[in-house]
């Protein structure tokens, strides 16, 4: 049976099930032995979902130290001989995976978004050239593999029932980074703070460069539709929207029931962040913007006018229903 190691980024524990989904795509459900490595927390949420949970003892290494964490993963691999090591492609994960692959003298695929099985074997898919093309990568030989997995790229249906063995990792870490986290400052923007992670939302109202001055109104529309606000790269670069709500190649990958794109041209880099969208409504002055060809409804016109009129319509509908 294959042995898979999954590292949990303390700042993004929500990506751990995605990695379990990637493991299932690699080897098939129930056909591998799963090991979870975590730095903080009990891991209670994953009891029954993993065969093994390795808790790193408190104080052994800082949760943001890529060199120290790499050493822990390397040591665990030496002891347990993992076939694959999956790391979330978060900022921290991107600093761990290449170090680990070098130390293990093995291949690395970064930012994996898909895994395909064909007659030539397994191909690991990742976007390249700012999302304009896809690379299909095949590992040669039977050695271990290291992959960083793009958050929200894989589905995993939680199923418990495994007997989870928990062990504490206590081996001293000899090679820590010489870095200290001084402070964390939550960014503040003109528009409302986003509530939660856009990857957890089923409805996204996304604004682009064409709605720069309408971002507060986007928040209202998103609330009316029970969703969250997202953004393309342009308003993020302009300082209008937070980086944490950016969708696309350099932002987040989302799967939603409804994606309403307002003033978004739809560069291939932005579309790269739309993994699965059931319904797409785009509002654009140009009916020929790339995003239009992917839309169920194209609203050609001014996005500000659209938001105002649709909100009015929704308010009238809701106030009328309240009276009944």
């Amino acid at each position, binding site marked *: 049976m294959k042995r898979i190691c999954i590292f949990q980024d303390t*700042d*993004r524990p929500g990506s751990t099930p995605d990695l379990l989904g990637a493991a299932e795509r690699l080897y098939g459900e129930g056909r591998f032995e799963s090991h979870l490595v975590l730095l903080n927390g009990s891991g209670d949420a994953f009891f029954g979902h993993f065969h093994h949970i390795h808790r790193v003892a408190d104080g052994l290494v800082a949760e943001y130290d*890529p*060199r120290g964490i790499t050493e822990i993963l390397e040591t665990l691999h030496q002891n347990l001989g993992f076939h694959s090591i999956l790391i979330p492609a978060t*900022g921290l994960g*991107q*600093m761990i*995976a*290449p*170090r680990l692959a070098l130390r293990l003298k*093995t*291949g*690395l695929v970064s930012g994996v978004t898909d895994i395909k099985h064909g007659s030539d074997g397994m191909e690991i898919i990742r976007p*390249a*050239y*700012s999302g*304009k*093309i*896809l*690379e*299909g*990568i*095949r*590992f*040669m*030989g039977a*050695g271990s593999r290291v992959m960083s997995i793009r958050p929200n790229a894989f589905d995993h249906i939680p199923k418990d029932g495994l007997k989870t063995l928990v062990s504490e990792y206590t081996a001293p870490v000899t090679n820590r980074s*010489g*870095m*200290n*986290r*001084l*402070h*964390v*400052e*939550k*960014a503040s923007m003109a528009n409302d703070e986003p509530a939660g*992670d856009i990857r957890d939302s089923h*409805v996204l109202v996304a604004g682009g460069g064409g709605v720069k001055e309408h971002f507060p109104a986007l928040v209202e529309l998103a609330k009316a*539709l*029970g969703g969250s606000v997202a953004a393309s790269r342009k308003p993020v*670069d302009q300082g209008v929207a937070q980086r*944490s709500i950016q969708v696309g190649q350099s932002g987040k990958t989302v799967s939603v029931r*409804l994606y309403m794109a307002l003033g978004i041209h739809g560069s291939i880099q932005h*579309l790269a962040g739309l993994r699965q969208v059931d*319904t797409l*409504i785009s509002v654009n002055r140009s009916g020929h913007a790339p995003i239009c*060809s*992917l*839309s*169920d*409804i*194209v609203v*050609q*016109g*001014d996005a500000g006018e*659209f938001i105002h*009129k*649709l909100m009015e*319509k929704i308010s009238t509908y809701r106030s009328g229903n309240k009276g009944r």
Partner: protein
Amino acid sequence: MGMNILCAVKFVPDVDRVAIDVENIAGGFGNNRAGRSSRMILNPDDACALAFALGVKAEHPEYTVEVVTLGPSSLSPHMEDLLRLAVDRATLISDADLDTGALTSRVLASYISTRPFHCILTGSHSLDGGSARVPVELAEILGLDQMLGVTGIDPDRFDTMQAVIDVAEERGRTTYDMAMPCVLSLTRESGYRLPYAKLTDMRRDVSDELIVVSADDSGVQPLTTVVNRYPKIFEEKDRQVVGTDDAGIEQVFDFLKAKGFLSI
């Protein structure tokens, strides 16, 4: 005390302006040979790293800034342009005879290990690859700390002992204190911009100043992966096109209602 800042940069096809033809992309090589007939630009993240270094040098003329890149000899004019921007030393490591099994990071590290430096600045992501692995590998091979996603460096706390940096993370902006020497990898969000060359510098013949060296191929190792490339295809839909008039809004409203997005 003077400070030696080394910038490891990459020139990439301008993917925003040229079509990427998957047939013409050679695979498996870190500093890939894609689009060498295409217009090449200094990778935007790398340009920010160099811009910061030149900004520090403008304040401290005694500091030195060295730029190193790996690529074909056709990059010489681009590197000469950097020499015209007050870069003290520019080195092009020619990859002409390099085996495709060589890791970019090993070749770069082999050269950099022969140079004096207090800090290595790079970009975080490259337009063509985007995996951010080279700066991390470079740090690992050289035994250094490294940070990706740097959006700002405090110029008053950037010296031979430490660098205080800001990093864009999911939770917001995080400030770290990094011990030198280390590798700091900047992003475009930093907003550092390269200066314009002075008119007199633009006319300066710097061809003798550019150092061209052959790549040390000790970084060659057996290939562990094979890469295929495919065009990305999005599925088009049969769409309804409406305006922002009352009829258009009504249609969108009815659609949202029918799909259950307006449930109270």
